[in-house]
């Protein structure tokens, strides 16, 4: 795996959940293997961009923080983008959205969520880990990926290593990094084929109500609580599920399916959040209120292309 035995970062304390994630597993969903990858891929990409990495390089997805403590065994430059998890470099506060130098012996601690849920810590050239089915992303349920290739999240004693050289001095241009979602944030949804099967009242409610993120929210899916939606279809023959699909089981409470969703499923769907909206939802803690906003496919694609363009247009001597 590593082979060089190079020193890196040692995990002193693991916290509730920190996992290696990259751009995810592509081209394997027909095997029943989930997409995986950074749930807030926008933050993951910016973290990698700050170091001059390929945007989908393997980084650390840190959920909640909860005391995750990493100790540097050598001096290096890292980048942190995403949620504000009250991170400290020794005693100094660490603001997400920039790269920074860590000196040998210094400790990085992630304490608790102050704004958002997931933060991405990027490493020069990307983290080293075995490539499993085309990706280093960790999927515990499938026992795939991660530091040892067996799907396990980070644990105390693990050592993170990388072998690239960072690009210094990159700053994210003002206005390009999306802020963490505010209460009532709007999530763009492209209506799907079953939308006509929902009652008129349910469609009105779907797009004109506040939805509250339920406790049952993880990388597989986020359950939303609000008015009960009624669909004339109770279930369908299982079919492929895209990222962001908003499925509505018989209890009428939608579930938005994220990166670790099952590959096929049989509940009717309102449609699918755009990839940008799915990334935002992945930053919402339980209790957060969101709104669903229907957008056209054309609008969604235009927004997506614009956001991807930002990565290549930005920065000194853009890549």
């Amino acid at each position, binding site marked *: 795996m590593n082979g060089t035995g190079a020193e890196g970062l040692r995990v002193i304390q693991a916290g509730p959940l920190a996992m290696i994630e990259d751009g995810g597993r592509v081209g394997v969903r*027909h095997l029943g293997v989930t997409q995986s990858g950074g749930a807030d891929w926008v933050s993951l990409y910016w973290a990698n961009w700050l170091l001059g990495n390929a945007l989908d390089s393997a980084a650390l997805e840190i959920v909640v923080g909860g005391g995750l403590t990493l100790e540097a065994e050598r001096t290096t430059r890292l980048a942190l983008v995403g949620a504000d998890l009250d991170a400290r470099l020794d005693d100094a506060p660490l603001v997400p959205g920039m790269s920074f130098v860590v000196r040998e012996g210094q400790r990085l601690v992630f304490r608790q969520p102050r704004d958002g849920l997931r933060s991405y810590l990027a490493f020069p050239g990307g983290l080293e880990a075995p490539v499993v089915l085309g990706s280093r992303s960790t999927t515990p349920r499938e026992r795939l990926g991660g530091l040892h290739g067996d799907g396990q999240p980070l644990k105390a004693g693990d050592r993170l290593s990388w072998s690239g050289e960072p690009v210094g001095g990159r700053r994210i241009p003002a206005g390009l990094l999306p802020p963490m979602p505010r209460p009532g944030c709007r999530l763009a949804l492209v209506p799907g084929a079953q939308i006509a099967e929902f009652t008129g009242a349910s469609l009105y409610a779907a797009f004109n109500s506040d939805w509250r993120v339920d406790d049952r929210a993880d990388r597989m899916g986020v359950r939303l609580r609000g008015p009960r939606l009624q669909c004339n279809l109770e279930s369908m*023959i299982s079919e492929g599920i895209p990222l962001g699909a908003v499925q509505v089981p018989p209890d009428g409470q939608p579930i938005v399916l994220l990166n670790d969703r099952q590959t*096929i499923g049989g509940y009717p769907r309102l449609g699918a959040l755009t990839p940008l909206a799915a990334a935002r939802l992945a930053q919402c803690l339980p209790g957060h209120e969101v709104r669903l906003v229907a957008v056209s496919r054309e609008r969604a694609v235009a927004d997506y292309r614009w956001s991807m363009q930002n990565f290549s247009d930005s920065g000194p001597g853009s890549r």
Partner: protein
Amino acid sequence: MRAGIETAAMDVLMVRLFDTIEESNMAWIIAADRALRDAFGKTLIDLVPSYTTLMVHYDCRVLAHGEAHRRIRETLENLQPADTQAGQRHEIPVWYDESVGPELQRVSERAGIAIETLIRRHCNHDYCVFALGFAPGYGFMGLVEEALATPRLETPRRKVAAGSVGIAGRQTAIYPLPSPGGWNILGRTAVPLFEHARRGDPLLKPGDRVRFLSISRDEFEAQGGDTTPLEERP
């Protein structure tokens, strides 16, 4: 081939070929899978076939919706069914025992037959692999004869052991990994489905045929099977 082409997401189209689950669908699903992969080439991100549909996820940065739609239409216009005999036939040895198959009793009681008869009849059919999903290498197979059809457990188990063989409705399947699950568990196999899937080459593929063989505990152990009972009762 007539098909519906539906929007599933910004960059995902659902190709709907059939409305019901039939073994005869598979020749068309397999043919469409191959032809669509060819038609989209490098612009394809993922293609997920299922019982009646194929989900096409394309790269919307390089391919416009209209072009994706056109490629699907043209592909299906010229489609010929695949030769279903080309699929592989697998024999999967299963240790049917109440310690690892706690619903042998439930399923046999519902069918009004002895457990031995249930085992014989579960083994007496070449099942068709309809779709992969739920977990890496998990193949949904059918159709189980009507008399043995049994609905899912009302409360799923928190953990079903790897290799567990179960029935839900008229479908049957093997759990490649320990996972939560609500299927009626009849026995266990030592065939390492997950290891195949992890290498990107699942043992069971859509259109394949599967026959279960009843084996003894000794044979199961000799094959490396784990005899730990599936203790948790839902």
